[in-house]
C-alpha cells in the first residue's frame, strides 16, 4: 500500500552545480551544512576534498564539481555540503547551492537522454521535468563508489 503511494510522488532535494539543477531522494539526505573547515586527505582521488568533523563523526567530503569533471569554483555563501547516507557509509557532497525540497510525480521522470551536458551518463538515473525546470536525477551509488584501492590511475 505505502509503496504504491510512494511511487506516485517522490520527495527530492534539489541542488545546483554550474547552471544545472540536480535532484537526489530526500531519503538518503541526512542534513545540509554550510561550509565547514575540511582537512585534506593525501593520496586520494582529486574529487575527495578531505574529511570534516560532523558532530564528532569524521565524514569524507566529495566535491561534486570535481567528480563530474566540471570547472572548479570558489566557495561562497551559497555553497552547501549535503550529507548523504548510503548503505554503510556517510559522505558529504559539496554543491553550489541547495535550493529546495520538491515533490515530483514519478511519471515525470524520464530515462536519461543520450547526452546530458558533460556529466558521465553512468551517474544519471533519469531526468525529471517539473513545470519548466529540468532536474537531473543522480545515481548516487555510482557517483560515490567507495574508494577501495588508491592507485595512480585514480589520481
Amino acid at each position, binding site marked *: 500500500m505505502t509503496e504504491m503511494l510512494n511511487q506516485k510522488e517522490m520527495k527530492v532535494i534539489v541542488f545546483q552545480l554550474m547552471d544545472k539543477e540536480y535532484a537526489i531522494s530526500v531519503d538518503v539526505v541526512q542534513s545540509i551544512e554550510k561550509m565547514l*573547515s575540511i*582537512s*585534506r*586527505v*593525501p*593520496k*586520494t582521488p582529486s574529487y*575527495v576534498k*578531505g*574529511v*570534516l*568533523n560532523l*558532530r*564528532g*563523526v*569524521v*565524514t*569524507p567530503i566529495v566535491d561534486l564539481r570535481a567528480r563530474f569533471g566540471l570547472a572548479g569554483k570558489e566557495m561562497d555563501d551559497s555553497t552547501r555540503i549535503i550529507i548523504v547516507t548510503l548503505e*554503510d*557509509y*556517510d*559522505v558529504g557532497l559539496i554543491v553550489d547551492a541547495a535550493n529546495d525540497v520538491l515533490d515530483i510525480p514519478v511519471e515525470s521522470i524520464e530515462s536519461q537522454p543520450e547526452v546530458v551536458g558533460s556529466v558521465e551518463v553512468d551517474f544519471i538515473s533519469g531526468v525529471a521535468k517539473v513545470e519548466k525546470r529540468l532536474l537531473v536525477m543522480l545515481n548516487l551509488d555510482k557517483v*560515490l563508489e*567507495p*574508494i*577501495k*584501492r*588508491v592507485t595512480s590511475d585514480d589520481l
Partner: protein
Amino acid sequence: MDTNPYFEMFIDESKEHLQSCNEHLLELEKNPQDLAIVNEIFRSAHTLKGMSATMGYEDIADLTHMMENVLDAIRNAKIPVTTEILDVVLQAVDYLEEMVMDLAAGGTGKKDVRELVESLNRIEAGGSAIAVSAAETAATIVVEENSEKVELSYDDYEMTVISQSFEQGFNALEITVQLREDCVLKAARVFMVFGILEKVGEIVKSEPKVEQLENEEFGETFTVALITKEDANTLQGKVMKVSEVESVTITVLTDDYLANGKRAKEDEAIKAIETAIVTQKGPSVQQEQTEQKGKRNTGVQSGNKTIRVNIDRLDILMNLFEELVIDRGRLQSIASELHNPELNETVERMTRVSGDLQSIILNMRMIPVETVFNRFPKMVRQLARDLDKKVTLEIIGAETELDRTVIDEIGDPLVHLIRNALDHGVESPAERLAKGKPEEGTVTLRAYHSGNHVFIELEDDGAGVSRERVIAKAIANGVVTEDIARTMTDRQVAELILASGFSTAEKISDVSGRGVGLDVVKNTIESLGGYISIDSTEGQGSLFQVQLPLTLSIISVMLVELEKEVYAIPLSSIIETAIIQKSDILNAHNQKVIDFRGNIVPLVYLKEIFEMPEQHDESDEFQSVVIVRKGEKLAGLVVDSFIGQQEIVLKTLGNYLQSVFAISGATILGNGQVALIVDCNSLIK
C-alpha cells in the same frame, strides 16, 4: 511470534549460562561430593532449556533436557560423579555452545547429536528412570471436578513456566476459592489464601488480577494457578482453614489439559477479546514474577544491578561527549577573554563535571578480563588430556578491567600462548618426576593494572627455553648470525622464539603446530599497541609478559605540523624526536639518510609522501625529524614542526575511504578540526 528483539539477549544469556555450566562442571570435577555445584549447573541448564524452548530452538532445548536429566540423577545421588560422565556432559555443553554460536552466526543451530544423546541416556539409565515416571503419575491425578470452577487461560510464557515445572517434578494446580456470601473483608481473606499458597509454591496467575483482588473488585470466587510440590488434598485442607471460605476446588493441570485449553482458546472468537484485555494487563503479572525471581536470584548471585548496552550506543555517546568537550574549550577561551567572574566560575564547574563525565563514559566501556579468561580452564583440561600431561591452571586477577575493544582482540593470542606453554613448556609427568618436580605442572595466568597499562602474564614451571636449541635453530633459519648469537643475553635468546618463522617444536603437533608461530602472537599484540616479553630459566619455567594499553580508542600521539596541516604520529611507534642539521643528511643510493646513534636511518619526507599542494623551500638550516620504528627497522619522518604530545580519541575515516595510504585513522582536535593519524608501519618497508 517475532523473536528478533530478544534474539541477541538470548544469545548473550545462553553464552553466559553455558560458561557458568563449564566453570561449575570443572569445579564439580574437583569436588565431586558438592551437590550445591550440581544445583548451580542444573539451574543454568534449566534456564537455558526454558529460553531456547521459548525461542523455538527445539534442538537446543532437547539436548539441554537430556543433560538436565543426567544432572538430576546426580543431584539425587542416583549416579556418582565420574570423569567419564563429566566428559559426556562437558561435550554436551560444547555441542550446545556450537549450536548457539551457529545461531549467532545466522545459522539454524541444528546439529547431529544422536550419539551424544545416546550416551546421556545410557548414563541416566543408571537409575533415575523410576523417579521421573513417578512424578508423571502424580501429576495426572485429578482431585476433584467442580462445575463452578473457572478455567484459566495461559499465555505462552506461563505455559512454558508450567510445562517446565512438570519436568522438574512439580505439580501445577488451579485452585478456585469461593468465599462466603457474607464475607466482610474479602481482600484480607484473599491475602491469607495467597499467604498460604505462596509458602508452598509459586503463583503463576490469578483471575481476577492481583490488583483487582486487592481492591475487592470481584464476586465471591477467584482462581489461582499454583506451581507446587504440595499434595492437592493437603492444600485444600490448609486453604479451608481460612475463615469465611466457603469451598476450595483444586484441579491438577496436565500437559494434555494445557494443550487442549490452548486449542479451545483459539476457537472461541468471543474470548479473543478477553484475551486481548488480559494481554494488555499482562506485563504487570509478568513483572511481579520477574521481581520475585529477581529477589530469589539476588540471594544466590551478587547484588549487582546491570543492564546491557550496545557498544555502538556508547560510541555515539562518546562522540556527542567529545563535541561537548570541544565546545567547552571554546567557552573557556571566550571566558578568559571576557574576564567575567560569574562566567569563569560556571565554565570551571562545567569543566569539572565534564571531566567526571568523561571518566564515567570511558569506564562504561571497560569489562573484566574474566570474559576471556574463563574459557581457558576447560581448554587446559582438554589439552592436558590430549597431551597426557598433568597441569593445573591458576587464574589471578580475572576481575582486572580492560576496554572492550582490547578484550575482543587478546583472546586468540592468549590461546596461542597457553597452547604453547602446555605443549612446549610443561613436561610430561615422568620427566617432571625425574627432574625432582611435582608430577603436576602449574600454569599461572595473571592480569593486573599498572599505570595506563594492563599486564597479562602467563607463567609455567616447565622446561623453559633451551638456549642452545634456540640458538641452533635461529642460526639454521638465518634469524641471527653465530657471532651475534654468542653475545646475546638469555632474555634476548628467549625472545628469539617470537621471531617470524620460528618454532621450537621439533615436530609439528596438533596442539600448537597449526602452521603459525609465536610471531603471529607478537604481531597481534604489537598491532594493539602492546608489547610482549619473555623471561625464561632453563629447567625452571618461562614467564610471558604481555603489556596492553587500557583502551584502543584513546591513544597517545605526537602532533606535528606540515605546512598548515596537522598530523598525529602514535607514540607507540616513536623512538624519539630529533632536530638535525641539513649538513648531517647523507645520500645513499638516491635515499637521504642520517646517522642516528650509529644506525643509518632513511629519511621520509612526509610532505612529499602526502603530496602537499604548495611546498615552501626549506631555507631553514635545521629539520625536525621523528624517529619511528617498525619492528627492528627505523625511519626518520621529516616534518615542519612538533606541536606536542597529546591523548587523542581514535576515529575511523569511515567506509567510503576504506584504505588510504599511510593513514590509519583520524581524530578531532580541540579546535574541532580533523587531524589524520600517520600509519608508520606502511611508511617503512
